[in-house]
């Protein structure tokens, strides 16, 4: 959390995270270019530029695959949440690797011609009507443009400027970009060569992304959507202390009903920062704490403690026959609501 914008709010965890990230990228590139390529069965070695475009391109694919696995992994097993904490740096590094791949492609396959490189990339192959020989470069270009857009708007300034829902919607473009990237590889390199290791790793990576997202979606569907203005949540004792029960409301929104000792309050489940799942967080130092980036809110009014200014909607609660009920109509962000007293019911 911050009351002003700085390029990066460095802390020890981010340094370690980024160190491991850079080490992973370097390990891939060194293993590819300096060790593996020399052991390939080749009459003469592959051109240096082609070798590097292959190294950076495949590296970018694997990095993006890992990035997209982090979200569902963290939903299924909270021990993976630290990987999500600095995921934006992961994305920016992936864009840099993908951009290097594109630079080698443009500088080798599309240079030295009368047509300018970018125009040549988009115009030299127009076989859009066939899968075999499809201009897969256009799919890669689309994915690269999306990665550039997401990397450029990854800073909290853009999150605040665009608002969390718009920013989140924008960054969901990573999924069509990944789909385009899978098609880019499947219609290009995968059909072009007989490389079993890459085929297995490529297929396994794409299936892991799809499978983990399906598993996380199934996990999320377990929350039943309720009907009516007042929606039953559960008995107070069913909510662990300093934890929440997430309830899906008739309009599709989710609320997080937190218990802090004998007091129960409800706020929106979506963090004002990046729409993180507040209900999967905990109460730390008296405040609801988002599991993604540690943003905090008072459960009584949905406001971040001073000097921070973030706010989320609150909900009215009542008790009926020993069961907590929530008013499905959200209050404006930051609206104070007295906590429900559940002393003697837990």
């Amino acid at each position, binding site marked *: 959390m911050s009351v002003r914008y700085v390029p990066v709010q460095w802390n020890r*965890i*981010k340094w*370690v995270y980024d160190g*491991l990230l850079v080490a*992973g990228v370097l*390990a*891939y*590139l*060194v*293993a*590819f*270019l300096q*060790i*593996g*390529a020399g*052991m*390939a069965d*080749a*009459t*003469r070695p*592959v051109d240096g530029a*082609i*070798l590097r475009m*292959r190294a950076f391109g*495949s590296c970018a694919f*694997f990095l993006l695959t*890992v990035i997209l696995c982090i979200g569902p992994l963290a939903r299924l097993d*909270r*021990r993976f*949440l*630290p*990987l999500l*904490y*600095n995921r934006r740096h992961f994305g920016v590094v992936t864009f840099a690797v993908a951009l290097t791949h594109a630079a080698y492609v443009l500088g*080798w*396959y*599309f*240079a*030295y*011609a*009368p*047509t300018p490189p970018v125009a*040549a990339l988009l115009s*030299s192959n127009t*076989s859009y009507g066939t899968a075999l*020989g499809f201009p*897969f*470069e256009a799919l890669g270009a689309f994915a690269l443009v999306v990665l550039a857009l997401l990397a450029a708007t990854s800073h909290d300034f853009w999150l605040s400027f665009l608002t969390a829902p718009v920013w989140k919607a924008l960054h969901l473009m990573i999924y069509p970009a990944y789909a385009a990237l899978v098609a880019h590889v499947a*219609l*290009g*390199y995968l*059909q*072009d*060569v*007989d*490389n079993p*290791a890459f085929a297995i*790793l490529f297929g396994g990576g794409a299936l892991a992304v799809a499978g983990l997202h399906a598993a996380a979606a199934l996990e999320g569907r377990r929350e039943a959507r309720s009907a009516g203005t007042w929606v039953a949540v559960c008995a107070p004792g069913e909510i662990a202390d300093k934890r929440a029960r997430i309830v899906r409301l008739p309009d599709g929104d989710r609320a997080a009903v937190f218990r802090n000792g004998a007091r129960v309050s409800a706020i929106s489940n979506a963090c004002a920062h990046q729409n993180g799942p507040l209900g999967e967080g905990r109460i730390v130092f008296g405040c609801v704490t988002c*599991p993604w980036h*540690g943003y905090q809110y008072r459960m009584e009014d949905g406001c971040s403690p001073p000097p921070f200014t973030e706010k989320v909607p609150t909900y009215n609660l009542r008790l009926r026959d020993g069961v907590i009920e929530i008013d499905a109509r959200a209050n404006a962000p930051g609206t104070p609501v007295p906590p429900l007293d559940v002393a003697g019911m837990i």
Partner: protein
Amino acid sequence: MAAKEPPFFIGWGKMPAALRDFTIGIGLGLVVLLALAGFMVAATQNDPGDGAVLGGAAAVGVLEAAPYPVLHVTDSESFAAGTALLLSGVGKRGVEDRAGSLDGKLVAVKGVRLARGEIEGVQVSPGADGMVEADGAAARPVAADLGRWRITGEICDGKCLNGAMRPGTGLAHKACANLCLIGGAPPVFVATGRVDGAEFFLLGNADGGPVTQEVLDHTAVLVEAEGRVERRGGIHVFLIDPASVRLAR
């Protein structure tokens, strides 16, 4: 007994020891996995062939401009007499504009030697001495008509195939091949089987001229094409009907 709750992670706080060990383990594991993946992908790449750029070369011979410029060598320190050299320009360009007025004449060519297996070529130097008429005279080889053939293979650009790029064939190279062909580099048909002992064929149109733009839709994939095959000295020429080109079954 209640299940033990996993420690809660807060980015700005102190990471619980158990979570720290798990996270560092995952991070180091990813580094190792990435290194293994990089090694495996690189070590199992296909053989790109023996095409290569072999340094400077010069030759004198009879120039045949159509369908694409070919020099039939009569005298050279780099090439045996009778070798047919596919001529291309610097970058993704051909040399038709320079060769047109020299058709059938004895010509001296200087440039960079390109070779792949049975085919040879020269990237002609851009200077005035790259391609000039030589003193003397010689006859172009008599073309032997080998009849009509339907051949299966891949349409490539004769410059990259010949060693300007390695690999210079295949789907990943399709757009580059198209750019080379648009620029005037000679197209080559690489057959899956041999015809008259030849695997590589200089491509031309049925009328004896350069191929049409339709061919660009069929580069870099396995196709069947029908046309007349001629042996012209040290090279075979496949003069195809563009409408006959289709994906190989």
